[in-house]
């Protein structure tokens, strides 16, 4: 019944007849930290110079179109910085009076920037870091996660594997800390959904260039050898967060099996082929505006700014506290081209969302899978659940 009272209350707030709009100027910033990186395995994954920023441009347009009817204007500035420059870049954003900041950075930098922004009363949206700790013991009250966690991504893959009855997994992990963290998420997912790790191996990152003139020749000889002699398995699960080997796994195994995780069927927030639930319109708007195809990070930034836009539309306030409070409340929901509303977990600031399983060609499936139930929301079958989380900043 409290829901009904809330709805009534919302009714009185939302009615707007065109003449009585209160002007609101919504200023936000996107801060992207660029790291020295090797080229991706596939040119399909080359990072565009405006990665993330392009999502902000579309969000400003989308929010602005709605805002036009309400007297709300949206302006989002974009900033790229090296890890060393990041703090200064944040200070400049804060000095400019902006208190809504979307950050694309690795966990360590993100946390430092979040605390720095928090001291100035700013609200931060995580658009890229997948680390579970950020949603767990290292959570921050002024940090909302639009990017899914490693656990959400791993659970999305695990559910599909279990739905397919591919329960015997051969887990191949990279040797970098980020790969190992993702590998750990897959181990937890296996335990959570009843899959078995019949074999686990680490594929050492020995460095070197991703691009050679001999291309596939060495890979075709080396990978099957690495994969041979494994116990009988249904599927190969790859944990390669640094993108150095998983992309090569399909077709180069010893035993012919599907590959999922960091190679083969990958969990993503969005891909440029996704069309269901009205996503075609999102794709065409994005492509018309940016002259390129969308990457998951563009979508994450777009979604973070849509959270802001939606909240401003409903509450008429662009204050960080008001936005945080509304986003975490039961009243908040948002359509995000994924077939159901996305909402926040009010106990760690993570956005609940379906995860697309993408094979590089099309959306193969979307998790959560049918039959995975949860007492709160099926979306809470993905990622850290409330009883598992050590996050206390939201209490």
């Amino acid at each position, binding site marked *: 019944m409290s*829901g*009904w009272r809330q*709805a009534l209350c919302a*009714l009185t707030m*939302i*009615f*707007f*007849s*065109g003449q009585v709009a209160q002007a609101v100027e919504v200023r936000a910033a996107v801060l992207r930290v660029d790291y020295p990186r090797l080229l991706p395995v596939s040119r399909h994954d080359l990072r565009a110079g405006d990665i993330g920023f392009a999502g902000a441009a579309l969000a400003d347009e*989308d929010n602005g*179109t*709605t805002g036009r*009817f*309400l007297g709300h204007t949206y302006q989002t500035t974009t900033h790229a910085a090296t890890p060393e420059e990041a703090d200064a870049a944040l200070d400049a954003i804060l000095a400019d009076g902006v208190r809504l900041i979307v950050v694309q950075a690795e966990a360590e930098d993100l946390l430092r920037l979040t605390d720095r922004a928090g001291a100035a009363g700013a609200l931060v949206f995580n658009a890229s870091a997948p680390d579970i700790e950020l949603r767990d013991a290292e959570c921050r009250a002024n940090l909302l996660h639009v990017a899914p966690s490693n656990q959400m991504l791993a659970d999305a893959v695990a559910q599909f594997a279990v739905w397919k009855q591919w329960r015997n997994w051969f887990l191949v992990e990279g040797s970098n800390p980020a790969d190992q963290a993702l590998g750990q998420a897959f181990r937890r997912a296996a335990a959570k959904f009843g899959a078995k790790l019949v074999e686990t191996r680490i594929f050492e990152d020995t460095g070197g260039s991703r691009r050679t003139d001999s291309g596939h020749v060495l890979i075709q000889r080396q990978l099957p050898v690495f994969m041979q002699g494994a116990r009988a398995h249904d599927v190969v699960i790859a944990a390669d967060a640094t993108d150095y080997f998983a992309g090569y796994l399909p077709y180069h195994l010893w035993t012919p099996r599907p590959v999922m995780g960091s190679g083969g069927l990958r969990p993503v927030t969005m891909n440029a082929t996704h069309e269901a639930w*009205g996503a075609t*319109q999102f794709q*065409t*708007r994005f492509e018309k505006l940016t002259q390129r195809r969308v990457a998951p990070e563009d979508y994450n930034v777009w979604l973070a700014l849509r959270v802001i836009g*939606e909240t401003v*539309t*409903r509450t008429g306030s662009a204050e960080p506290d008001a936005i945080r409070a509304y986003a975490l409340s039961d009243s908040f*929901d*948002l*359509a995000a081209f994924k*077939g*159901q*509303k996305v909402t926040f977990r009010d106990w760690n600031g993570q956005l609940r969302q379906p995860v697309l399983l993408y094979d590089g060609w099309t959306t193969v499936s979307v998790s959560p899978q049918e039959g995975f139930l949860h007492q709160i*929301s*099926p*979306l809470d079958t993905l990622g850290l659940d409330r009883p598992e989380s050590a996050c206390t900043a939201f209490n």
Partner: protein
Amino acid sequence: MKTLLLSTALVALGLSPALAGKAFVSNERGNTITVIDTDTWEVITEFAGGNRPRGITVSPDGKKLYVCASDDDLVRVFDTETYEELPSLPSGPDPELFVLEQSGKRLFIANEDDNLVTVTDTETRTILAEIPVGVEPEGMGISPDGKFVVNTSETTNMAHFISTEDYEIKYNVLVDQRPRYAQYTADGTRLYVSSEIGGTVTVMDIAEDGAPTVVHKITFEVPGVQPEWLQPVGVKVTEDGSRVFVALGPANRVAVVDGQSLEVLDYILVGQRVWQLDFTPDQKYLLSTNGNSNDITVIDVAAEKAVRSIAVGQAPWGVVTID
């Protein structure tokens, strides 16, 4: 192809005077229109409907069928008797849904990709106006007096009340996430707007000058169905306003709502992913398009019961009926 040939043959054999009513179903994935005899509930034929046919309506005299061929960026026109294609109408890009004014002259079309409502003259086949609206316009309703067209924008989450006189937006009403459909009652005093992702139907009272006031929100609850899957899309109201039928998408049900108390009375189980609805002209039956089970369900309106389902083409989207 075989079934198509077969049904064409059946038509040729059973060609009878056109006394029977017909239902036309747009099959979004099949790129076809299925024609159903609404007396015998037999499929009469299925014909090519352009690329990605979605919104579908008929001229007031029942002679012309208009179809939003979304991927062709135009409105295709067919003869409801012969199924021959007539000259198309310009629609602007990606037309999804539209509404024809009572006189049949102007068609108001939602262009999903361009944040526009396009007004097309069906006689001169020219575009009269383009009206900027919110992001991803979709639902289109027209007031019974023809003075207002209501467009819903799926990402902006508003119902825009457009004057059909000067094409200016007179009122904007914020509703819940992803509004899909707008339906006036026959007396024009009330408007229902469905919100697919929000899971609600917003009810507005309409004043004499057309001004809306939100009075209620209908919510839905079905035991054993996840609330996430209760996604209202198509809405139809009986002539007397006493019953409101709401298609609930992946919940595979049509809700029956009391038009007075606005209480949900019942949920009728239909096919999978039910989107659009239309009454037969006598309002004895309500038809629902079930996109994931490739059929339509026939609901007996008085009994409020599903009485049969009819296989149609692939991914049925919209439906319209004639006498």
